[in-house]
């Protein structure tokens, strides 16, 4: 992992790259936000988003600028140098709310989501700053429910449109031990 801090301008944020399994997570910059807006407004992604509203260019720019004042961090997901999705965390006191989506549908039912989350969770828990991760999943997003349960997340609360889940460090360690072993167990 390489971390390079650059000056905080309206465009460039902390340049953070997380790498592993031919996946790279790179801090979101203003050059990415239009691409991300198009992803976010697509039927495939919007379908499972808590906010179903269409996002305008102006709203997207205002949102990106607002990130300067927050501890929320967004990363574009690259698979073999191709941008395929977005992953993020929003700090909330001692917990952190995470989420991600993969726009490239060819990667959704593959092992790519596990590779992405393996890198990301390792980064979050190794930072020692967070002991618990949370996420929200729409009721009809069964693929995400199955996926997150396999990561060690536990359902904690049910709301009208979604359920919230929590991943504690010990549960992460147990689940990640199996997942990491399988992802690295490739034919030599």
């Amino acid at each position, binding site marked *: 992992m390489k971390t390079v801090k650059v000056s905080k301008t309206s465009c460039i944020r902390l340049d953070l790259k997380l790498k592993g399994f031919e996946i790279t997570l790179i801090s979101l910059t203003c050059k990415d936000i239009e691409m991300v807006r198009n992803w976010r407004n697509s039927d495939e992604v919007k379908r499972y988003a808590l906010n179903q509203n269409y996002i305008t260019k102006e709203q997207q720019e205002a949102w990106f600028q607002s990130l300067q004042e927050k501890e929320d961090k967004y990363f574009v997901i690259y698979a073999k140098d191709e941008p395929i999705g977005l992953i993020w965390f929003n700090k909330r006191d001692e917990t952190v709310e995470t989420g991600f989506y993969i726009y490239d549908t060819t990667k*959704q*039912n*593959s*092992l*790519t*989501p*596990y590779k992405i989350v393996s890198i990301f969770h390792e980064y979050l828990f190794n930072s020692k700053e967070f002991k618990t991760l949370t996420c929200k999943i729409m009721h009809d997003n069964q*693929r995400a429910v*199955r*996926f997150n349960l*396999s990561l060690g997340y536990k359902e904690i609360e049910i709301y009208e449109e979604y359920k919230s889940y929590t991943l504690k460090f010990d549960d992460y360690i147990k689940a990640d031990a*199996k*997942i990491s*072993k*399988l*992802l690295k*167990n*490739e*034919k*030599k």
Partner: protein
Amino acid sequence: MTQEEFLVRLAEEVQLDRALSADEMLCDIAEWDSLAMLGALSVFDEIGASVEIDELENCKSIQDILHKAGFEA
């Protein structure tokens, strides 16, 4: 492990409440998602068979997976 046993284990890992058959296409299995792929890797690991992730992801059918696991048609 026999082919039948492999298919039973694979169905368990995919969390299917029915049996898998060799002639099924993966795109026709609603539950064939990332969890199913990880489950397939787990069963490969169980029987001591090795497979590249790319090879597994390129499988289009249960038969392809059986072939990778070393089971002949």
